[in-house]
């Protein structure tokens, strides 16, 4: 179920654009922000509010990789492993995170706190290696910085 504030935000999208369907991508952002991922049930709910077909919202949602389609950890760690970051050690960063969190890329820790993904270029090549955690960027990463961040997140469960 979507929260009341998410439902309000979705209702505000009605009539904002010349066609109803133009509200689909903004609506997906609202659902993602509310739930942390997109499930079919939540998308159906959103489709009904903005007045588009459930099929259309699903079809569009599955095109975009920004939105996880299944529940992920509280902290979704996405490490860029495109060329510039790889040249600067993205891979040893990924290895270190796998070791530290005791999970493989694509997995979530048993306590549901962390999910580790590798992703394509995040437009932060000059500050490589880097990762995005939820909606924030963490750049020029070192093992010490990663230790500090993980520690902080573990303590703010």
């Amino acid at each position, binding site marked *: 179920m979507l929260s009341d504030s998410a439902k309000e935000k979705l209702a505000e999208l009605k009539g*904002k654009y*010349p*066609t*109803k*369907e*133009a*509200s*689909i*991508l*903004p609506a*997906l*952002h609202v659902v993602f922000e509310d739930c942390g991922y997109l499930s079919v049930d939540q998308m159906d709910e959103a489709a009904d509010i903005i007045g*588009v077909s459930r099929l*259309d919202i699903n*079809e*569009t949602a*599955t*095109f*975009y*990789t*920004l*939105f996880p389609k299944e529940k992920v950890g509280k902290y979704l760690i996405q490490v860029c*492993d*495109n*060329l*510039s970051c*790889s*040249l*600067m050690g993205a*891979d*040893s960063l990924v290895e270190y995170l796998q070791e530290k969190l005791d999970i493989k*890329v694509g997995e979530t820790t048993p306590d549901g706190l962390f999910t580790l993904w*590798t992703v*394509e*270029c*995040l*437009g*932060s*090549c*000059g*500050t*490589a290696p880097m990762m*995005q955690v939820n*909606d*924030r*960027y963490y750049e020029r990463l070192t093992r010490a910085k990663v230790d500090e961040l993980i520690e902080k997140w573990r303590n703010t469960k």
Partner: protein
Amino acid sequence: MAEKILFKYIDYPDQHKIDVYMKNGGYTALSKALKEFKPEELVEMVKKTNLRGRGGAGFPAGVKWSFLPKGINKPTYLIINADESEPGTFKDRQLMEYDPHQMIEGTIITSYAINCHTAFVYIRGEFTYCAEQTEKAINEAREKGFIGKNILGSGFDLDIHIFRGGGAYICGEETSLMESIEGWRAMSRQKPPFPAVEGLWGCPTIINNVETISNIPHIVNNGADWFASIGTEKSTGTKIYCLSGHINRPGNYELEMGVTLRELIYEYGGGIIDDKPLKAVIPGGSSVPILKADEIDINMDFESLAEKGSMLGSAGVIVMHDGACMVAALQKLTKFYEHESCGKCSPCREGTNWMDKILKRMLNGEGKPEDVDLLFDVAKNIMGNTVCPLGDAAAMPVMSFIEKFRDEFENLCNGGKPKGTIKFPFR
């Protein structure tokens, strides 16, 4: 070197706030444009500067604007393309995070010039902070009366919406971007009709990159001749070069068009990490043909790079020293295009997948000697055979890497070990 234009105040404290932006001369161009110029005079002015698109294609902005049809009964839309996703490129993000009003002022002036009353800033989905900064700035500008009804008493109305993407590289391509705003899977459209004639919701639409639009206030303030006098004859103005990879001082450098690649790497970038020998440079974002170490005495402008068989593209300069295996580096790029292909055209959808597979088997030591030609052949058959430029963008690195570093590919396919010391496992 000419004075910085776009980055003049990039490090100035609180430049993102409207009061500071205005203290530093901001929004004077808007007032000047609305009071002293007719819309068509602004289009002529920008045409005269020969300001070329900074998103990658380099098409002259003023010429693009002049393609808008006259006297039709449909709204005109302006879209600012802030879907920055070309690997190696990270300039628009800095412009929007630290000096968003510069882009917004450019957007308002451009909207006035092309008679647009609804503009969109399409920001890539991952750039949350960037979208927040831009939204705050738009709200500030609205409060000051620079956006809304009857702007500065001119009778001109404009609203600007932020539209956030969903993490798809293809949305940087203008027709896919419009599909995305319309709410569909972002698959490119056949051109013609060009967006200027039939774009967003079938209406005339102009799409310009953030850096391109950020130049507009300065052109209005200083004139077309001033702008045209900077840079080279055909590549006018400054360019923000993004330096990344094995470089001592990575980052964005705003320099006059035509600076040499050698100066960029050794003077501004502080040379190669650990003083290692340079091996190769991608000069314009991941899509453009690679250059070897002995090809860096070249001017970084549209014409000079094209003459050498490469492109200025988005000016994302990726530097590699001799520790990089070219086959592994290429696989990182090919995997990207395989992931980002929208799937509409078979050569791109299937071809990127096959190129990635072939590269992976080479790196796994399972490559056959004929694989090098096969890989080249797949790329060649994507080139020019797709609706949008993503196909070419995937093919060009493959073809150029093989042309310039064929020995490394052959070595791997004949039982050799990968060159270089950097670990590049792939997924």
